[in-house]
């Protein structure tokens, strides 16, 4: 299974539910295009829900960083929600866990954008 992305709006926060694999190829390019599309539509508050992500490689990590930079440089905020152990371990080992604003609770994450 490759990656599946679906976006919903909660107030002024765009929540992107990501499921499947974020790896080199289709998975990472789909995430990149989705984030660029939101930035082009002037969405400033983006919450990536990674709860259903089964696999991520260094390319996928690179896409998370790229998305973070793109959104931040456009004056917005990108935050992460529901990291499973696998994704959390990878972000910790690459020292990116402290770069991202990571949440376990969607309501709290939504409120944190205010």
């Amino acid at each position, binding site marked *: 299974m490759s990656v599946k992305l679906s976006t919903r709006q909660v107030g002024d926060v765009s929540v992107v539910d990501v499921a499947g694999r974020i*790896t*080199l*190829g289709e998975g990472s390019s789909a995430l990149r295009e989705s984030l660029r599309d939101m930035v082009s539509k002037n969405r400033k508050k983006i919450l990536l829900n990674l709860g259903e992500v089964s696999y991520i*490689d*260094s*390319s996928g*990590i*690179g*896409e998370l*960083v*790229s998305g*973070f*930079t793109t959104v931040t440089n456009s004056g917005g905020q990108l935050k992460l929600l529901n990291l499973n152990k*696998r994704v959390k371990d*990878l972000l910790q*080992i*690459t*020292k*990116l866990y402290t*770069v991202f604003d990571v949440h376990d609770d969607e309501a709290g994450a939504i409120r944190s954008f205010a």
Partner: protein
Amino acid sequence: MGDFPRPGTESVERSLDSTLESVDHAEDLAVGLARRAGFDEEDLMKIGLAVRESMVNAVVHGNRYSAKKKVRFSASVSGRRFMVRIADEGEGFDYTHLPDPLAPDNLLRTSGRGIFLIRSFMDDFQARRLDPGGTEVTLVKFVVSK
């Protein structure tokens, strides 16, 4: 004695096309062998990711997706020692002068973490240039009784 494997030994060897499908295939082969060797789920994840990153380097950076170039993949287990070798036919790659992805100035780079992850997840990682061209990497991990 013939070619029968010794007890506790198993190996697989493939010549693979320079495609992303080959990356998936090699990862599946390596993880399957590692599972039979007795690694737990956490180590299987680490082995799978390390093999994936190595295969991506061979297919993308080494052979540059060339249909004329192959990736040689082999995996073997002998006792507690699990080993994977991956060789491309590219220009050769210098593994000795890689930027540190954990350095503050590099944290927000979008690439450059693959080798770091391989080294973090395997017990040993070696790379050498091949004559007349290409790069071969060797990944080793030992089964640990838990």
